[in-house]
């Protein structure tokens, strides 16, 4: 069984998945979701191995974020190592994620596909150098919204309360630890760092309407010329190439 051989074909994406009235789905984990989970676990293990902290958010179901964090920090199986995982809560999780996440960290969200705060975090994460993982059910987020999307294609809005998310992050934790038993695989291919179109978040706009702004990118803070996209304000997202902001990204809201 090769993960490259498109196991998605058997997945529920065709819209045939129907939740059983008792809350037990006919198949809790189809082959497509299982393959996504395996990919996510290997990525997460590699990032932890490289020193990542896992930041957990779940604006509507905060206990799920706490549950994810405690799985990693205090494993149920004796002898498994404690990993850095913290929950972000409070009135402005976007601002809190911005100051918390460092380059190389991971942000995991347990949220609906249209959650506005999580959508903001996911859009900005590349500028913070953070990797992203999104667990949810119902309508999916836009394609490419996160590095890894672990989705339950069940329209039932009560699915988050039936244990199916719990199963997903339990398995994510377990598979991540299985990956640690394969140290030779923990140093994956380094991410390409092309200078073309790097996402940047404006930290400090220029004093005048044009000129250099201080921006944050995956590689840290730098000054770039924002004349082409001026005026900009703090928090705006721009694409940077060769020391200049070429276009804005802040108005691209997924439908």
């Amino acid at each position, binding site marked *: *069984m*090769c*993960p*490259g051989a498109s*196991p998605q074909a058997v997945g529920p994406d065709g819209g045939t998945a129907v939740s059983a009235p*008792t*809350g*037990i*789905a006919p*198949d*809790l*984990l189809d*082959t497509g979701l*299982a*393959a996504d*989970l*395996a*990919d996510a*676990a*290997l990525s997460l293990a590699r990032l932890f191995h490289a020193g990542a902290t896992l930041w957990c958010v779940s604006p509507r*179901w*905060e*206990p*799920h974020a*706490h*549950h994810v964090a*405690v*799985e990693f920090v*205090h494993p*149920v199986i004796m002898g498994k190592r404690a990993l850095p995982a913290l929950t972000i809560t409070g009135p402005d999780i976007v601002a809190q994620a911005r100051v918390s996440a460092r380059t190389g960290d991971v942000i995991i969200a347990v949220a609906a596909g249209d959650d506005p705060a999580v959508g903001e975090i996911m859009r900005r994460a590349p500028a913070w150098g953070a990797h992203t993982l999104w667990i949810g059910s119902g309508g999916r987020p836009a394609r490419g919204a996160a590095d890894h999307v672990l989705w339950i294609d069940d329209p039932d*809005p*009560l699915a*988050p*309360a*039936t*244990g199916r998310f*719990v*199963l997903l992050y*339990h*398995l994510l934790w*377990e*598979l991540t630890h*299985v*990956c640690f038993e*394969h140290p*030779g*695989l923990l140093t*994956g291919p380094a991410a390409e760092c092309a200078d073309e179109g790097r996402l940047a978040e404006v930290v400090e706009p220029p004093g005048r309407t044009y000129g250099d702004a201080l921006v944050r990118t995956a590689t840290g803070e730098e000054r770039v010329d924002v004349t082409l996209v001026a005026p900009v304000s703090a928090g705006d997202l721009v694409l940077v190439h060769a020391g200049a902001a070429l276009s804005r990204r802040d108005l691209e809201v997924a439908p």
Partner: protein
Amino acid sequence: MSSVGAERTGFLYPFIQRDERDAESLLADLATSARAKARESAALQRATLAQCAALIEVAGAAMAERFAEGGRMFTFGNGGSSTDAATLAGLFARPLDGRPLPALSLAADQAVVTALGNDVGFELVFSRQIIAHAHARDIAVAISTSGSSDDLLSALAEASRRGLLTIGFAGYDGGRMAAAPEVDHCFVVASQSVHRIQESQALLGYELWATVQRHLPARGRRER
């Protein structure tokens, strides 16, 4: 010529090739293992619901009576179970569908939990809150995998003394909770895996909520 050269020297670096192959086979193994565990989880959920069907009905009806009398529900647990207790309280208090019912998680207040843990000992973090907040018409729900946590048992005993309806969620063989006379209704998920137990307990909690909603007296419902 260079490709032939690469072929000839490839044996010098077998780990590179092997690592690439292994990542694929590892991913396939992970996916297979995940599916097996998910099937195990679903089978346990089905078995648990079948075994607990009558108890869910009885406990749900008793809870609905308490809510109808103006009672509130306090949920509590440790670690992951404390988050499941909070999820359950959230489902009762803010359901997307049905009637919102007063329910609170006793682990939610960091000031109270740390004050009690520091001043009187961790085994009293929940029972002291029961003493402070609870009335006889209320409901105490303790969620545990072992069924034997001191802080939960002490809170259930306190709740029972005060006339609360007491409900326990346990795993394994039910632990001390299953045998405690202070627990009116005890749901036991017969498994040895903390994770599988929690997944079944979540569904049990959901079924309990649905049962309570069904049993709420019509007079309490808003007129259409």
